[in-house]
């Protein structure tokens, strides 16, 4: 694969983590404009861990996820009472506070005669772990996608588990879920924590992919984009947000002819798409049809195996 393709694919993989993070909150019925905050926190935490403290990458990613998840839990508690627009704006306010705090954050250590570490609005340069350890771009791509596969597998299991069903139920009708004896508060905080950790892992990968982070990357644009990915791709399955990222970064990056008109076409297409499919391409209905079709085919195959005479039917 050429470098350009690897770069685009790596980008898609990393951004998918933030998209999944916003998607998880959408399942519980909350719109967050602020998942980029945990992405930023994860990026800085993991970057500091490898570049300043000399940790191995795996430990740094776990650390980024833990800090991102912990921060999300802390924000989840005061915002628990808020819904809809109120929640969306509260998360936006929090994320902007985090971004500004990173612009004021200085923590530099001299390593080999060179100052390394976050330097306020100047950003955080030289997160050189993958160069120092001779990991090439393709290997890092594999790492991103294996972690993404683990996350997706987690989502698949989650959506079949009691907790996952409860999340969707809270998203459908919070009051009703509460009346059924479900602890809405506990589940929402749990969802916020998992979403924060997911964004944290993504941030850790991002910091090591680009080797350089600066606060202005993590602005509202990133947050609203990651929210939009789930809505474009579909809210029926965790593959939805991935499809959204693929359409935005993959398709539009590759159509270079449209440079300059890209957002005019993309913006219009998304607006038209949302009129026809307000819950995205792969919404609950489509996912249900696909799974029913799949089950039918599967059932037919199994029946024909059990009873060979049916084969000709």
């Amino acid at each position, binding site marked *: 694969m050429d470098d350009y393709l690897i770069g685009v694919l790596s980008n898609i993989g990393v951004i998918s983590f933030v998209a999944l993070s916003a998607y998880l909150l959408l399942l519980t019925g909350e719109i967050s404009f602020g998942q980029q905050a945990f992405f930023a926190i994860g990026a800085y935490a993991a970057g500091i861990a490898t570049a300043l403290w000399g940790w191995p990458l795996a430990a740094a990613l776990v650390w980024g996820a833990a800090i991102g998840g912990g921060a999300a839990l802390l924000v989840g508690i005061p915002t628990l009472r808020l819904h809809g627009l109120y929640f969306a*704006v509260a998360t936006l306010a*929090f994320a*902007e506070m985090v971004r500004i705090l990173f612009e004021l954050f200085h923590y530099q250590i001299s390593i080999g005669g060179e100052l390394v570490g976050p330097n306020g609005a100047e950003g955080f340069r030289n997160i050189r772990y993958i160069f120092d350890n001779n990991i090439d771009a393709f290997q890092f791509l594999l790492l991103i996608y294996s972690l993404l596969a683990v996350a997706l597998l987690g989502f698949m299991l989650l959506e079949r588990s009691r907790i996952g069903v409860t999340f969707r139920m809270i998203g459908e009708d919070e009051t009703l879920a509460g009346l059924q004896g479900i602890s809405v508060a506990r589940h929402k905080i749990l969802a916020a924590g998992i979403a924060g950790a997911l964004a944290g892992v993504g941030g850790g990968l991002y910091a090591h992919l680009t080797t350089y982070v600066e606060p202005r990357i993590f602005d509202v644009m990133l947050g609203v984009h990651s929210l939009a990915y789930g809505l474009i791709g579909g809210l029926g399955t965790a593959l939805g947000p991935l499809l959204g990222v693929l359409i935005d970064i993959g398709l539009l990056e590759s159509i270079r002819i449209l440079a300059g008109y890209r957002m005019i076409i993309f913006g219009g297409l998304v607006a038209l798409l949302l009129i026809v499919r307000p819950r995205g391409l792969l919404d609950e209905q489509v996912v249900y049809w696909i799974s029913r079709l799949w089950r039918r085919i599967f059932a037919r195959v199994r029946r024909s195996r059990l009873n060979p005479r049916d084969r000709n039917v």
Partner: protein
Amino acid sequence: MIDLVQNTIDGVMIGSSYGLLALGFTLIFGVMRKLNLSYGPSIMIGGYLGTVLYLQYGAGLLAVAGAVVVGAVITGIYVERLCFAPMKAGAGIASMVSSFAIWMQLEQVAILILPRHTYAFPALATGLPLEFWSLLVRIDHLIVLCCALGLAAAVQLMLYRTRFGLGLRAIVGNPVAAHLVGINVQMAVLLAFAGASAIGGVAGFLVLAVDQQITPMFGMWATLKGLIAMMIGGLGSVPGAVLGGLLLGVLEAHSQWYFGPHIRDLVAYLVLFAFLVLRPGGLLGGAPETTTPLKA
């Protein structure tokens, strides 16, 4: 002491433009219960139209003002037709994301029209600031304040003293019931949207004329400032929008003076966050609805 008073005055002056932005925002949100992220960018398109007239044809101040308002209204109607009118009831998130997509589109259009980063915009009022007991007040700021108070009063009167306002309030209460008693809901919503865009256009013109420049960042700035002021003041409340804008302006002026621009933005968001957590209804809004107004 004199600093304290001067900063407060400056804050009130800057805050009145936030209040104007919030006024249009709160009208849209109050009627539709949906968030229009394209609010700032549609004003920006109006601003770019005005700039083109000013730079290419040397249009006067009033012509530019008219162009900004007309541009904002036309773009606002485009946004309403594309992102809000065709959506099913209850598809609030879809409308919001769709208006975000249109934001991206409008920003690109603005950059295609005028590709440089900054362009000059005609000044509202030149001349020395007025002086009251060694306190300085800029004339253009005074004009903005008067416009904000005047427009807020006009909107309040329109909502509570006219038949059209009564219809709008009926739609806010219950759109289906409003339809059943013979109110043309689609038309009323479209008119409210256009009116809100016109107010936004006035706000945008005044801000740009005070700053004397326009950049493609203006759309995002207008949406964010309007949103913060609206949330602090209380959703759907006209006096709240103005009051929220003024409070935001005063807070920003003081924190800018004492701590610099980074802390200024931090304070604005911190106050917003604190308001949402402790008093989600804002200064003058009622308690927020228990049902989620923005459900998909």
